[in-house]
């Protein structure tokens, strides 16, 4: 401990002795430089004694603009570089993602358009969409009332009729039984909707599972009505 403190105090005294000399050298240097700037000499002598070095005057290369303006220029260049890289990186990533998504011809084939005026009220239509049957039913007002009046909170897969249809008179859903994938029969079963003959699942007029082994309601695909009389599935 005592040895360490002795050595550190020695070091400190050394440093203290060094400081005035260095400070003098610095002062002379600054002075010399000030003189050089003022008279814009071509060169000036090294501030250190007995040195033969001649330091040239770099004033010619110094910017005549204010330091702030140079700083703003540097930051602008760096920022513009960052801006360009951000745009380039975004475009690259986007190109890859667009490349992975389905092309326009595939998307066009994945849609089916149906004229609704050909389906009379109270009738089912089965169409093929992406290799699967789709049931479209033009429901009567009595059927709509029946579907809405059901106490849906107590069902196996609770879903209100409002959540399953966009327009109450048109029920659109995939005709694949959620049990093992058979195609249910329309206008059959205990609940006036669909009945799956394979294992006896009964669906109601909103396509909800009411009885039998199926765990879920019949799936509703994405669809929309571009006009009053057409339906596009997909």
């Amino acid at each position: 401990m005592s040895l360490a403190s002795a050595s550190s105090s020695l070091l400190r005294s050394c440093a203290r002795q060094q400081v005035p000399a260095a400070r003098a050298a610095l002062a002379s240097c600054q002075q010399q430089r000030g003189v050089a700037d003022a008279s814009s000499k071509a060169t000036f002598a090294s501030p250190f004694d007995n040195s033969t070095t001649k330091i040239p005057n770099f004033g010619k290369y110094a910017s005549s603009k204010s330091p702030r303006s140079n700083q703003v220029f540097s930051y602008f260049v760096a920022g513009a570089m960052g801006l360009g890289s951000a745009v380039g990186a975004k475009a690259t990533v986007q190109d890859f993602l667009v490349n992975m998504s389905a092309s326009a011809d595939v998307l066009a084939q994945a849609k089916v358009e149906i004229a609704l005026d050909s389906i009379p009220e109270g009738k089912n239509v089965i169409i093929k969409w992406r290799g699967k049957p789709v049931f479209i039913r033009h429901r009567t007002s009595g059927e709509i009332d029946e579907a809405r009046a059901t106490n849906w909170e107590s069902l196996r897969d609770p879903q209100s009729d409002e959540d399953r249809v966009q327009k109450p008179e048109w029920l659109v859903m995939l005709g694949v039984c959620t049990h093992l994938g058979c195609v249910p029969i329309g206008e059959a079963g205990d609940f006036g909707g669909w009945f799956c003959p394979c294992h006896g699942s009964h669906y109601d007029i909103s396509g909800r599972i009411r009885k039998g082994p199926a765990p879920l309601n019949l799936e509703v695909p994405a669809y929309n009505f571009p006009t009053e009389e057409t339906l596009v599935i997909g």
Partner: protein
Amino acid sequence: MAGLTSAIYSTFIHRNAVYLSTIFLGAFAFEIGYDVASNKIWDAMNRGRQWKDIKARYMQAEEEDDE
């Protein structure tokens, strides 16, 4: 000039968060502008050859056929 540069510095550069936000917002705006400009140039170079330019002719003919 000095007033302008120091105004730019204190507005956009002084705080790093503002600087970075400016860069990303600028990138967003630049991308939109670049896309619009390049689409305009493309359409100008291909005027009369694209479907949207000639669509009116065929659509009219189709409607006449329907009628």
